[in-house]
């Protein structure tokens, strides 16, 4: 057999060697490019292949009312977050399309997130629809630095009714849109650490482009621990009734109901309200602005964060002050009321001609002229000191944020305001009928009514039933009204209802329970505010205060709100409206 080399001609092996040399040369060139020229760049990229720790937010604690009704809980929603450093801005359009968001909006969110941190995931959209979740899940591998997560979201089953009391949650102030969810107002804010829980986390490995390579299962993950629950003294159904009734009145206002035997705050209603669920699910800037900037101030709780002149409801304080300090006897009879009272050159008006009245009937008819004369038996400082001992001018609770203390001016205050000779007896007259510089909150006035019901003292007002040990109750000085004073006040308040021409007869005269009350018409620029405060002993120990802003004179608006709420609440509570008192 003849031997024959295939490579005799030489070109095949030369081709082999040429290909070998050329191929290795290309590889070397590429290696030099990647490792020497671009080495630093790739080294930096490689560093970014890292473990990403994603926080699992803890569900916030449940908030319950006194009956165990759920006022706030959590539901699971889908959230999209972006790690700005890993997000390719070229993906903005795809992400926007999947989330049904404007690409520019996505870009703005990412921009905002990157101002906070380039490496911490930042929420850009929450509460995704099923379709959006599905679309995103299908494309998540293309979207570096985009995280799809199921997170708990605060939910308020009662909606608006308790919005001021509970407040709402939102991203923490320092965090911006993607920040940790914290309580931003109301009890959510005050009890934030209590409700917060402990966040867990999960870890995943991501590549240099932010795409998830693998997830750690257990034990790399740590589950979140839900926050502690909170039980409130509030009665959600009563609160709902009050908000609904205030809404019917059509004017901003508030209604506070306390159990004067226990001090429990059963109702802390304010209207208008805001939608807490909308705020917690991430409100737009425009939506926030329209809420916060609204002339009706829906974010403001009028029950404790707004103060009003108490007007005639304050006559209870004036009367109690004069009686308690022995400045006036129960049988005191001043000049009759002919509709006005003159002091120096100034005329002080009454709303009608009452004729001669004693202190009980002066309360029942709310006669100004009686009190103009009677209050001159006392002094500004004495009145202020006594009003303070009745709880006015100071906080009622420690747990309600932005609770106003109001104002009960003494002589020093008036000196400060007008100069030592800039005020005089006329100011005392005004203070005696609850006008002038006086300012009180509905919560303070409900507590005042409760104090009268309780014979001059009442347990401290209680907003929280559980977790209460953490909050020290404010010291409430016991006024300790004497029996004779009590008899006058109670009789006056009762006759306001029972007299056919009493101030509360029209609104409350047909209630089957013994209601004790006092109206007020607060003179303010524009239409006056309408006040009613009062209490019941039976069927339940309730003290209440209602204010309706700019509702006009006569006190009818607030009285109707109070009567309407009490009627429906007690009827629903098993006390038929037809029952006798």
């Amino acid at each position: 057999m003849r031997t024959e080399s295939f490579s005799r001609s030489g070109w095949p092996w030369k081709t082999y060697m040429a290909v070998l040399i050329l191929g290795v040369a290309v590889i070397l060139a590429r290696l030099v490019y990647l490792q020497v020229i671009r080495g630093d760049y790739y080294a930096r990229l490689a560093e970014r292949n890292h473990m990403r720790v994603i926080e699992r937010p803890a569900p916030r604690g449940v908030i319950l009312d006194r009956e165990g009704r759920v006022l706030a809980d959590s539901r699971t929603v889908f959230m999209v977050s972006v790690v700005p450093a890993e997000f390719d801005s070229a993906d903005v359009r795809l992400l926007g399309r999947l989330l049904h968001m404007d690409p520019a909006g996505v870009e703005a969110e990412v921009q905002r997130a990157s101002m906070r941190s380039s490496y911490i995931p930042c929420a850009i959209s929450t509460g995704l629809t099923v379709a959006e979740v599905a679309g995103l899940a299908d494309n998540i591998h293309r979207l570096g630095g985009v995280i799809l997560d199921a997170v708990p979201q605060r939910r308020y089953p009662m909606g608006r009714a308790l919005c001021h009391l509970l407040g709402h949650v939102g991203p923490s102030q320092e965090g911006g849109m993607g920040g940790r969810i914290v309580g931003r107002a109301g009890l959510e804010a005050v009890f934030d650490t209590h409700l917060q829980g402990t966040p867990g986390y999960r870890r995943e490995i991501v590549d240099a482009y932010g795409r998830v390579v693998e997830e750690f299962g257990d034990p790399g993950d740590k589950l979140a621990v839900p926050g502690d629950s909170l039980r409130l003294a509030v009665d959600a159904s009563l609160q709902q009734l009050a908000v609904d009734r205030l809404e019917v009145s059509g004017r901003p206002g508030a209604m506070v109901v306390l159990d004067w035997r226990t001090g429990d705050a059963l109702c802390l209603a304010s209207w208008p309200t805001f939608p807490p669920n909308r705020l917690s699910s991430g409100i737009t800037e425009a939506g926030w602005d329209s809420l916060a900037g609204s002339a009706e101030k829906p974010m403001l709780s009028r029950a404790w964060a707004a103060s009003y002149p108490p007007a005639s409801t304050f006559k209870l304080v004036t009367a109690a002050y004069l009686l308690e300090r022995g400045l006036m006897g129960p049988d005191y009879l001043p000049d009759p009321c002919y509709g006005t009272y003159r002091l120096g050159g100034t005329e002080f008006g009454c709303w009608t001609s009452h004729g001669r009245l004693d202190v009980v009937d002066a309360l029942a008819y709310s006669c100004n002229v009686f009190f103009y004369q009677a209050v001159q038996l006392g002094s500004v400082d004495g009145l202020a000191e006594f009003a303070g001992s009745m709880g006015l001018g100071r906080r009622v609770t420690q747990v309600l944020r932005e609770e106003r203390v109001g104002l009960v001016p003494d002589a020093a205050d008036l000196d400060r305001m007008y100069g030592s000779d800039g005020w005089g007896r006329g100011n005392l007259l005004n203070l005696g009928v609850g006008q002038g510089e006086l300012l009180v909150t509905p919560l303070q006035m409900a507590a005042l009514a409760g104090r009268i019901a309780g014979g001059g003292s009442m347990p401290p007002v209680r907003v929280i039933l559980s977790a209460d040990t953490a909050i020290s109750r404010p010291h409430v000085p016991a006024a300790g009204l004497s029996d004779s004073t009590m008899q006058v006040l109670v009789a006056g308040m009762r006759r306001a209802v029972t007299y056919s021409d009493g101030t509360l007869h029209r609104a409350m005269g047909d209630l089957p329970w013994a209601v004790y009350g006092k109206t007020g018409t607060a003179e303010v620029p524009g239409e006056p505010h309408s006040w009613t405060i009062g209490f019941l002993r039976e069927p339940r120990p309730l003290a209440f205060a209602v204010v309706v802003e700019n509702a006009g004179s006569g006190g009818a608006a607030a009285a109707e709100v109070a009567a309407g709420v009490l009627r429906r609440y007690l009827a629903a509570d098993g006390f038929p409206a037809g029952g006798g008192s």
Partner: protein
Amino acid sequence: MRKRERPDLFLLLALAVVLAVGLLTLYSASRALESGSIFTRQLIWVGLGLGAMGAGYSLSGRMVDEMSTFAWAAVCLLLVLVIPLGSGPAGRWIVLGPVGIQPSELAKAVLILIVAKRLVEMRRRRTRSRELGVLLFALPLVALTWMQPDLGTAAFMCLLTLAMFMWAGFGPEWLFLLLSPLLAALSSMHVLLWAGFTLLLVVVLVRRKLGFGRWLLFLGGNTAIAAATPMIWNLLKPYQQQRLITFINPAADPQGAGWNIIQSQVAIGSGGVTGQGFLHGAQKGLAFLPARHTDFVFSVWAEETGLLGCLLLLAAYWVLIWRLVVTARRSVSPFSSLMVAGIAAFFMLHLFVNVGMALGLMPVTGLPLPLVSYGGSSMVTSLFLLGLALRAGVSWRVI
């Protein structure tokens, strides 16, 4: 007959370096994977492979020549069996007890032997009209591999066949004709591509002054292939289509191939000149590459040892291939010469395709880097082929 010479020491030295690099890299990769068994198993594969190399070294050229037809038939059978019996992530393994065999790896080795054998047969009969006889044996291997579908390996086998034909003295036009079925299949993607391909085919056929039978065969056969490809395409399952698309255009795969290439480049680039340090790289850039112990093993080495380590590995590989080409050139036996040239092409093409893939120069094909990548079939096959080549180098005067 002369006294036996020692085997090629350059080649053995280069082999030792490449194997050492491979084991070091796998040790590091297995540490990062927290799967020490990968390293242990690879040690076993190297041991088995060295045994296979010894076996190959003990076989004379004539014995290999005579065995090759049986080996071819056996591997064809395995390739048929893997279609219904295949397991593993891509269905390319036949599991026999504790070990899985990857028939497509064996097919590459058998292809070298059978093509060498048929080319010699063809030469012996002093005619080039028998090139079809060669293709008759090569085609089942390629086609069966294609059908797995392992398009990367099938294309690799075409290139290997092409290289061996070139060694046998076939010019560019013949090489074109040899590749024409593959080109026909690819050209079916677009009518203009197909028209261009057919025009080129006609030109070559005219220039080679081939008879009517050949005209009919090449033109008709390739037209049939081009027409059938879309139909076969539609019969494929979506994941199979995806795999083919990815082979042709890696960027079309959003999650897999394109991403791996980027990861690989990050890893290689981050190695710099001196590397991240042994056992330190795999915690970083490449810790996230699923195929880091198989397809992208080069990237691990490049990240940990940098340009210097790459130079060492490339130099060793270069010496290995260079010595194989020299052996092939010196072989007086046509079969040995062709076989060793095939083996040289085997290592060279693997090097280019695998390292080129890691560097982002080549599409992702899933071809291993022989002697380095994890995998028993590849290791044993590669070392067996080197055994054959070493023997051919020693006994080049002995027929």
